[in-house]
């Protein structure tokens, strides 16, 4: 299905705060992204999705601290391989945007209000490709805008003269400026209306087919991911609880939390049915339960779940689904977890 690993996140842990009060928001997260893959990262607000993206690119704002782990990037174009977390500042700066570009959550605030769009598109190019002439850079910027369907004369516009959708498309164009191998998208369409969201995602899919970069797509909208992503990782309270291909996750969610997420949006086809939420609220990261973090909200929790924390491991059906991992003791439950209304499709 997929190629070599591009980004390997191993045992990544992040804390907010400096002393005894520090909150562990990411606990030993392991995740691998393969070349050409679209990996969806889903979960409720505050589960650590964005923190994961910021930490993996070392952009975590204070007081966030990476307390352990490694993030290994392997280039598919040459044989460069490095740990982002131990690279020096200069090495890191040289590889940023060149290897990994990011489209941030706040489309509205991601552009510098006092510079023209053109300047913001070209300054990444001039920082990384100083040998290019101003003319080449400008042509490239026009080409990038054209790629996302914005006329080139917009290069002379200021951000406040563009609509929200245009700004987000400018951000996508900017992310592709240096043809990165990996693009991280942190809720890129959350602030937009559904029509614009659809347009941008379509455009993104086309661009990905043409340019062949890998994508980490972060969103709380699981229905979007099922359509868009090759593989989905579901996060809960700072941990990955399930990691499976989109279709596996959709048809047979193995973790009760994933099951709950899949039941929390309405299917477009099939009979009408009651939407089931997940009762309760995400746990307080300051005082996590001793056992499985999801146990207090889980419908099928056993006594064991409240005492022991399940590791993210292969499922009981490892021979059928070799890449799949789930952090639940009851991963062998096959039938019970299938949402009946969704299997009909």
């Amino acid at each position, binding site marked *: 299905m997929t190629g070599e690993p591009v980004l390997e996140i191993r045992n990544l842990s992040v804390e907010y705060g400096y002393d005894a009060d520090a909150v562990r928001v990411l606990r030993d997260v392991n995740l691998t992204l393969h070349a050409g893959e679209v990996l969806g990262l889903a979960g409720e607000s505050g589960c650590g999705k964005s923190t994961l993206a910021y930490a993996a690119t070392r952009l975590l*704002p204070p007081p966030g601290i990476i307390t352990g782990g490694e993030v290994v990037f392997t280039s598919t174009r040459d044989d460069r391989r490095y740990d982002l977390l131990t690279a020096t500042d200069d090495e890191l700066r040289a590889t940023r945007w060149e290897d990994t570009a990011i489209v*941030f959550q706040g489309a509205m605030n991601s552009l510098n209000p006092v510079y023209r769009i053109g300047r913001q598109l070209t300054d990444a190019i001039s920082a990384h490709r100083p040998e290019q002439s101003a003319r080449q850079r400008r042509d490239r910027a026009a080409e990038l805008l054209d790629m996302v369907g914005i006329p080139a004369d917009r290069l002379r516009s200021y951000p406040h003269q563009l609509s929200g959708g245009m700004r987000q498309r400018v951000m996508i164009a900017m992310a592709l400026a240096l043809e990165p191998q990996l693009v991280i998208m942190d809720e890129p369409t959350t602030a937009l209306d559904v029509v614009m969201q659809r347009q941008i995602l379509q455009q993104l899919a086309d661009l990905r087919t043409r340019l062949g970069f890998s994508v980490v797509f972060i969103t709380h909208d699981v229905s979007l991911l099922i359509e868009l992503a090759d593989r989905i990782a579901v996060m809960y309270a700072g941990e990955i609880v399930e990691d499976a291909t989109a279709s596996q996750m959709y048809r047979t969610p193995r973790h009760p939390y994933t099951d709950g997420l899949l039941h929390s949006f309405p299917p477009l086809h099939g009979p009408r049915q009651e939407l089931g939420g997940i009762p309760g609220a995400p746990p307080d990261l300051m005082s996590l339960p001793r056992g499985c973090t999801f146990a207090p909200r889980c419908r099928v929790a056993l006594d064991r779940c409240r005492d022991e924390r399940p590791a993210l491991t292969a499922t009981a059906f490892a021979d059928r689904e070799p890449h799949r991992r789930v952090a639940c003791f009851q991963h062998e439950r096959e039938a019970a977890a299938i949402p009946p209304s969704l299997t009909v499709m």
Partner: protein
Amino acid sequence: MRYLLRRAAFYLLTAWAAITLNFLIPRMLPGDPVRSLIARFQGRISVEATESLYILFGLDEQKSLWQQYLDYWGNLLSGNLGLSFAYFPTPVVDIIEQSLPWTLALVGLSTILSFVLGTMLGVWVGWRRGTWADGLLPVTNFLSAIPYFWIGLIAIAVFAVAWPIFPASGGFDPGLIPSATPEFIGSAIYHGLLPAFTIVISSVAGWILGMRNMMVTVSSEDYVTVAHAKGLPERRVMIGYAARNAVLPNVSGFALSLGFIVGGTLVTEMVFTYPGIGYMLFQAVGAKDYPLMQGFFLIITLSVLVANMLADIAYAVLDPRTRQEG
């Protein structure tokens, strides 16, 4: 362009209102300048002289207020602001001409220096927040919390009396005649150093603090994170993305403070007996010299307006969002 024209029209209107008020207020006060002049000469003035004084001040009773107003404008446009009482019969314009350059040079240069220095330090301290650089703030805040006259007096006591490195008062060496010779200019600069130093010391903290806080705010903006993510050199992120946006409130603060330069730091000029507008204004108030005060107020009002206008232009240049197109 239309934006600038509209602003210019607004400022012309404001200037007209200010000048008209400046004309009306002294005329609404009890008494008139001639009577105070007579009082000053304690009756040793003839009736004819009194009458000619009334005509000279444009106060001969027959004229209507409207006619006076028109005459006032006529005088103003031909650069005639009347005669000073305290320095009678020197025209007010001459006194302003003499004292304005001193204030502009001393307070103007030290305000600019203080702004540039404070903003640069603020950028640096704000960018390195949470490090030892934050230790600079209590020090500068302490300096700005000291009453200014006290800093001035301490500076004189230390640098002019205990170690006589700098002169204690005046704008230039009394033995010299004001002229464009290197000797005179050197003397003027030498006399200006100590007052300039005290002004910078006491005002720099405000710029540092304002800029530092804006830097901290702007540094957490998404576009700064994007700039980091793009792998731009750190200096470029700090200057082009963070400082470039953080400086906006400081720029308007600076333009406003330019307006107060002409008002002079009254206290500075008093402490250092510096021959600028502030010192002369102090003298004028003491001598109830209405024409001189009126002249100074006019200059101060106009310069505040000009400074505001500069602030508007600077803002429009620096922040594209304030430019209204179409």
